[in-house]
């Protein structure tokens, strides 16, 4: 069976038709009639390096199936599933279970991330090698939610994964500097009486780990950068030739600590929303390549976890279904190119995560393709395909709409409608 996407606009602005056969891109060129895609940008399917799918253990908030649907609706063809499930993804059994749930959901590639330490407790290494050699072939490891704060353990983890080309994704949060922390440290935290989460708690860990990555020669990925100072540290580390990559979330690019003023836990997230000048620094760093990728840190929480007072509420926000729109605003809105957009949301995440079948759009590559209507404007709704509605962008109008998503040549989203598989 042959599908032709006619008259798409490629990243470089050229117009073309794309033919898909047997789940692969068969031809790109002038191929004649097919599904009319005039006005749509064709991009390699989006890849999220940082998703919380919550299964096993927290199925009330999200499942692999509902998270996959949300991902497909947002234009994703691959999600990296974080390890902080229950049980924790710290053994071959759990990562294989997540992998299988992803395959049976079928909307996109679900690739498990393994825990760095047993139970995310930061005390001893998890079964990194058996996860790597399991059917899930885990290459990315993270204790996200917790920081691997013990420097010796971090050093060993970096050394260990280097042996098979793995990467450690660090949640950079010095725990002693953030005990009880509730929001960005500063004058607003003082006024609201909420305990501050200082920038130095993030920046000091990034600096330490950059040096450990240099010493070990291993690959290090920094999750959710949030401060101008962290950008400076990454820039310095890259300048030294350290193998470090960095990620930023949609919410840290666009939202600021001012939103905490009403104590609405929908805006409670870890790391916290920062100052306006931090969002500017993050945007500039994304445009100049200091920050490599967008990672959603999609963190669904059931209503009970948010319908309470600020300090009792859980940290986290959903992100899969509006991430591309935020990125369009940040990159295209600032005069950046669709090529850079594709780098940030697809090509580089695929490379960092070691997903060989993702982040490609060329003849012979798997047909993981997302088509975006850049001229659309839409108001973000809280009622979506995710099981949870903790969406800080609710009610905000953003540019861009995912019109079609194809995973392995099949439409998972067609004409902006999620397909039943």
């Amino acid at each position: 069976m042959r599908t032709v996407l006619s008259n798409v606009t490629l990243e470089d602005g050229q117009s073309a038709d794309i033919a898909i056969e047997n789940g692969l891109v068969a031809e790109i060129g002038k191929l004649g009639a097919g599904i009319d895609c005039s006005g749509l940008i064709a991009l390699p399917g989006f890849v999220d390096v940082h998703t919380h799918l919550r299964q096993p253990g927290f199925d009330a908030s999200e499942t692999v199936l509902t998270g996959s649907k949300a991902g497909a609706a947002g234009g994703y063809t691959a999600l990296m599933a974080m390890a902080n499930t229950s049980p924790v993804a710290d053994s071959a059994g759990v990562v294989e279970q997540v992998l299988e749930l992803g395959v049976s959901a079928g909307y996109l590639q679900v690739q498990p991330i393994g825990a760095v330490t047993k139970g995310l407790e930061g005390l001893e290494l998890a079964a990194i090698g058996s996860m790597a050699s399991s059917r899930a072939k885990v290459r990315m490891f993270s204790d996200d939610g917790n920081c691997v704060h013990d420097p010796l353990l971090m050093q060993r983890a970096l050394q260990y994964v280097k042996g098979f080309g793995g990467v450690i994704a660090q949640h950079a949060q010095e725990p002693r500097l953030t005990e009880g922390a509730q929001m960005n440290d500063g004058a607003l935290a003082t006024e609201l009486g909420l305990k501050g989460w200082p920038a130095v708690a993030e920046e000091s860990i990034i600096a330490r780990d950059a040096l450990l990555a240099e010493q070990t020669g291993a690959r290090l990925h920094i999750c959710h950068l949030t401060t101008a100072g962290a950008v400076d540290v990454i820039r310095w580390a890259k300048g030294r030739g350290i193998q470090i990559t960095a990620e930023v979330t949609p919410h840290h690019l666009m939202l600021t600590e001012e939103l905490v003023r009403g104590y609405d836990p929908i805006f409670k997230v870890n790391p916290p929303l920062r100052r306006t000048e931090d969002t500017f620094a993050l945007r500039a760093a994304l445009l100049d390549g200091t920050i490599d990728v967008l990672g959603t840190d999609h963190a669904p929480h059931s209503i009970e976890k948010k319908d309470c007072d600020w300090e009792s509420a859980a940290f986290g926000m959903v992100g899969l279904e509006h991430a591309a729109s935020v990125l369009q605003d940040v990159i295209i809105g600032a005069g950046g190119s669709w090529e850079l957009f594709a780098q940030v949301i697809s090509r580089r995440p695929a490379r960092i995560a070691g997903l060989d079948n993702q982040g490609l759009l060329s003849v012979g590559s798997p047909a993981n393709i997302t088509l975006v209507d850049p001229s659309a404007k839409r108001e973000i709704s809280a009622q979506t395909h995710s099981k949870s509605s903790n969406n800080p962008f609710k009610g905000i109008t953003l540019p861009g709409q995912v019109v079609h998503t194809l995973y392995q040549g099949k439409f998972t989203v067609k004409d902006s409608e999620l397909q039943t598989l």
Partner: protein
Amino acid sequence: MKHLISISDLTKDRAISLLDNAQELAAVNDRDVKKIPALRGKTIVNLFFENSTRTRISFELAAKRLSADVINFTASTSSLSKGESLKDTAQTLEALGAHAIVVRHPASGAAHALAHRGWISSSIINAGDGSHEHPTQALLDALTLRQAFTRNGDLAGLKVLIVGDILHSRVARSNVLLLTKLGAKVEVAGPTTLMPAGIEKLGATVSHNFADSLAQKPDAVMMLRVQQERMQGSFFPSPKEYAANWSLSGERFAALGKDSVILHPGPMNRGFEISSAAADDPRSLVLKQVANGVAVRMAVLYATLSGEAN
């Protein structure tokens, strides 16, 4: 005025009128029959998630003097661990007929959540939330200062020094906001480790030297309690060193101007942040603060429950 959550919710005029009403209501405390029927038929719940016998008794007395029915609901930490949420507790109390809920909670923002999240429609009075605010404490301090310096309206030009653990103090935040709103010049003083970032944005000047601050001849010195748990938190090397630098000792007290007054929100750590020489001197207004607390809380309860327009 439906709620009182933060001093920032009050205009200067509104704050002065609350103080004026409190001054009038204070007269009720001097009568033989200490009761007026202003809030007869109203039910007020004191919802305390933190132990504070003083504040609770003060609110209870204020409500009773206005003839309201009072329920005291002291949620011990054990009932929190039973898993009932703040929302459920508040909705239960409203279903029981509460018109106003006076809430004390260890989490900053808890009173704000009760007032503004759409869970309930009762009036909410913040009796202290985390290290955010304690607005009735600031009002009673302002009333005490008005009386001490025979002011009728605001506190223009009065120099007030607040000393101690500013970082964790809701009393300090509410007082900085209210006293500056009323025209006073407020300085906060304490060790750098107990000074919150950006406190000057709330209107106070900052000092890290007690002697320098005292040399400016403040009209009033408010000493804050240092909580026991701060003694272990590496905020200062030892209680002894803290006391040496920050206690209102007999010597420091003696150096104060003759017309200066001393305030303390209580309970006092005698011999630690305040010496008995200072605490027991006639210039110490600590007991006046306690008495004014009842009057101020009567005024606040009346303003929130009488249906009086803003």
